[in-house]
């Protein structure tokens, strides 16, 4: 049975408040917090990246994100989970996504956090448009992961 107390997924047009996100995962029974930060890097696939834009399908991103967090609660004995993903224009070094899980012990926290960020990248409808040093830009539509069908 899930002992998940709180789950929170959101898209943010403003910088992610990491101390606030971290504090929201506090729980008296939790002995571990594992968080992942995804940062904007200055290169991808051999090209120099200057900045990027994230575009999201807001309503579906919200429901998919909440479904992932609820499923994490079922799978991993965690106390609280959260994930925030930026949308809009980001610069090199900006925090693009934050995911965290608190649990009684570290094994569940590590496993849940890893699984959440993997599922968010795989399922949540958010797209990255990279702007390159040569002036070109392009939407990334990776084909190395399976695309899931509907119900």
């Amino acid at each position, binding site marked *: 049975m899930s002992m998940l107390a709180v789950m929170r997924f959101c898209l943010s047009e403003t910088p992610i408040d990491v101390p606030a996100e971290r504090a929201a995962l506090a729980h008296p029974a939790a002995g571990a917090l594992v968080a992942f930060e995804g940062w904007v890097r200055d290169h991808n696939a051999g090209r120099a990246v200057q900045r990027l834009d*994230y575009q999201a*399908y807001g309503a579906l991103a919200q429901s998919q994100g909440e479904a992932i967090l609820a499923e994490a609660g079922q799978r991993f004995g965690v106390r609280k989970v959260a994930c925030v993903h930026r949308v809009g224009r980001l610069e090199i070094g900006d925090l693009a996504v934050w995911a965290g899980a608190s649990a009684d012990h570290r094994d569940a926290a590590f496993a849940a956090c890893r699984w959440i*960020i993997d599922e968010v990248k795989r399922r949540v409808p*958010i*797209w990255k*448009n990279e702007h390159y040093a040569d002036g070109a830009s392009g939407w990334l539509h*990776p084909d190395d*992961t399976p695309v899931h069908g*509907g119900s």
Partner: protein
Amino acid sequence: MKLQLVYFASLADAAGCAREERESTARTPRELYAEVAAVHAFSLPPERLRVAVNDALVGWDHALAEDDEVVFLPPVSGG
């Protein structure tokens, strides 16, 4: 029937718009995608897309209804 289409990422670039209303005889997302892919020269095959109707993921043979909002989702790249 009248259908609302919303496009994201490369599909919005190819369509030249983020949203359009179409009068269509398509009964399913599969038929609708074939129609709009021909109109807008979309290069992504349906096998690489997912489809949502009224903000919920559906199968390609879902029955469309008047004024449904249909979104074809290219492979995602968040994170």
